[in-house]
């Protein structure tokens, strides 16, 4: 039982950032704009929010959960602002969406290093922080049998933010006017236009939300796994895209995909702490490959019918037919 609690708790360190980032990608792609810049946006979000935490902690302004929540806001704002570059190129300039996404991916790590070196008095590129954000046990909820151990111990507020985003994204996409219009723009922008929906505006919002969530994903990725930020999110932005495609552009399936992938990653990296798996004596590299091979196998069986938004990647030209 302890092992299961542990696996679930650990799974969150992989699944939650992937979930948040993939949900970000969801909004952009559902509006019809390919967003391969998630990796870069994560870096910018992580950079600015960790820098903020670093400053606040150094100056002793405040700390703890309140600081984390403020950092969340910073990550969201910076990621959103950065993504507007992509939106401008893709929506206003009808640019090739891969090109502008790649530009952002190239820019972000360089900027994070450059910025850290220029801003920090020490001239170093790493930005350190003290992890004062972990919640050993959530009051009351942590005492619930089973569930408490699974979800409310050794947790981060960002995990709950991740779940909240999942719920909010699902509701936003399927239960609100905004979501209905956004999805229409990704499937059939001419139809949306013909009923008075401003396709350009909706796509801007789609990219903006994806930037906000990917920026947050950058922060959520770093906080539980390290105590410093080194201008990288280790390819998790690309994995976020993979989870998005794996989840067939649907929130719940994305959630399942991120849990699946997170679980595979957890098993592959923590098998040596599980005596059963350790005794098998299988090389750690084999375990490291497992999540990716498993994903390929699942894809082989589930991809017959692609659910990609029909207008994905197509610049919208008002008045065209």
């Amino acid at each position: 039982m302890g092992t299961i609690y542990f696996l679930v708790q650990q799974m969150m360190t992989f699944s939650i950032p992937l979930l948040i980032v993939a949900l970000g990608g969801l909004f952009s792609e559902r509006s019809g704009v390919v967003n391969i810049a998630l990796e870069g946006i994560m870096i910018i979000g992580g950079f600015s929010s960790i820098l903020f935490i670093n400053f606040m902690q150094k100056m002793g302004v405040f700390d703890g959960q309140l600081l984390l929540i403020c950092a969340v806001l910073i990550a969201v704002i910076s990621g959103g602002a950065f993504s507007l570059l992509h939106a401008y190129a893709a929506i206003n300039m009808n640019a090739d969406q891969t090109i502008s996404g790649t530009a952002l991916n190239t820019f972000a790590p360089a900027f994070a290093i450059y910025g850290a070196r220029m801003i920090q008095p020490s001239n170093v590129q790493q930005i350190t922080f003290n992890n004062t954000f972990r919640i050993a046990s959530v009051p009351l909820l942590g005492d619930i049998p089973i569930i408490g151990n699974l979800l409310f111990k050794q947790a981060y507020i960002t995990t709950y933010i991740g779940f909240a985003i999942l719920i909010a994204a699902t509701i936003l996409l399927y239960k609100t006017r905004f979501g209905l219009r956004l999805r229409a723009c990704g499937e059939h922008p001419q139809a949306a236009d013909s009923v008075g929906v401003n396709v350009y505006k909706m796509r801007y919002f789609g990219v903006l939300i994806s930037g906000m969530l990917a920026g947050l994903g950058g922060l959520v990725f770093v906080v539980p796994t390290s105590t410093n930020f080194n201008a990288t999110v280790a390819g998790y932005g690309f994995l976020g895209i993979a989870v998005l495609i794996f989840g067939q552009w649907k929130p719940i399936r994305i959630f399942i995909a991120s849990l699946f992938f997170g679980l595979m990653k957890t098993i592959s990296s923590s098998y040596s702490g599980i005596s059963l798996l350790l005794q098998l004596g299988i090389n750690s590299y084999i375990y490291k490959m497992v999540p990716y091979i498993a994903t390929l196998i699942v894809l082989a069986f589930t991809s017959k019918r692609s659910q990609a938004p029909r207008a994905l990647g197509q610049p919208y030209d008002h008045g065209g037919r």
Partner: protein
Amino acid sequence: AKPAPKGYEIALITDLGTIDDKSFNQGAWEGVVAYAKANNKTHKYYQPTEQSNDAYLAQIALAVENGAKIIVTPGFLFEVPIYIAQDEFPNVSFILLDGNPNDGDWSAGAPTFKTNKNVVGVTYAEHESGYLAGYAAVKDGYTQLGFMGGMAVPAVVRFGYGFVQGINDAAKDLGVDAKLMYHYTGGFDATPEAQNLAASWYNAGTEVIFACGGAVGFSVFAAAEAAGKKSIGVDVDQSGESETIITSSTKSLAPGVELLISQFYAGKFPGGENLVLDASNDSVGLPMETSRFKTFSQADYDALYAKLKAKEFAIFTDATAENAAGLPVTNVQLTVVE
């Protein structure tokens, strides 16, 4: 004509890592900065574009062009470049950390070593430092330990083997059996994977993990904090990085570099020598003032250190066994995770 800059007298070139890795490179750089600040010398670090001998040589050439008089190169990857550069730039002095200049040609069984008058090769007895950490940890009451190295480079391996033997000896002294998980993560970065691995060990009962791989430590510290367990730092005194760090297995990077630079300016540069910095010259050890031991005292440490200094016993090195699993241990249940 470009305005001739004053140039930078003291240069440091990293082997692809950055000078702010919180351990090896940073330690060396702090030594440079400490001397330069105190003596008002210009100083600068350079980062090569890729990991290759030519790229390192290019940076050495650039540093020389920029007026370097003494160049510090931390990392055994500089062995071959310094071997070449010592002839190419006879008027410049080099401090090679973690290695001795050689031509890198192992085809005849061993390469040709040569250390000119303008070069000092410095190697550390990391195994001694690791030994101290392992011994102290077990003496302090920990019997379930872990070693998490970064890449399996010689220095990391030496730290690890020493750690194993330290544990073994202390366990023997106490008449207990210790458990040790042993693994190299394969990188020097803080990743969710590394954090997860450490967390899984803690979850399976491990009490303290020796984090021996640059930024990998940050992942271990994060896991230790989450699990309420302990960790051990490396290279420099890392006690400030996390409350969970009971001690750090250090080698005197900054002081060593600072000392060598000051000797250079004093005209006493021990050129042509390959120094071994170990317990005998107080270059490895545990920072007892900042350590968070429960019972292991300064007196215990001093007694142990004296034995080490006197070289009363041999410690495993990277030459002892190719794989940690092959180390001859008696009181350690060693699980090597490949």
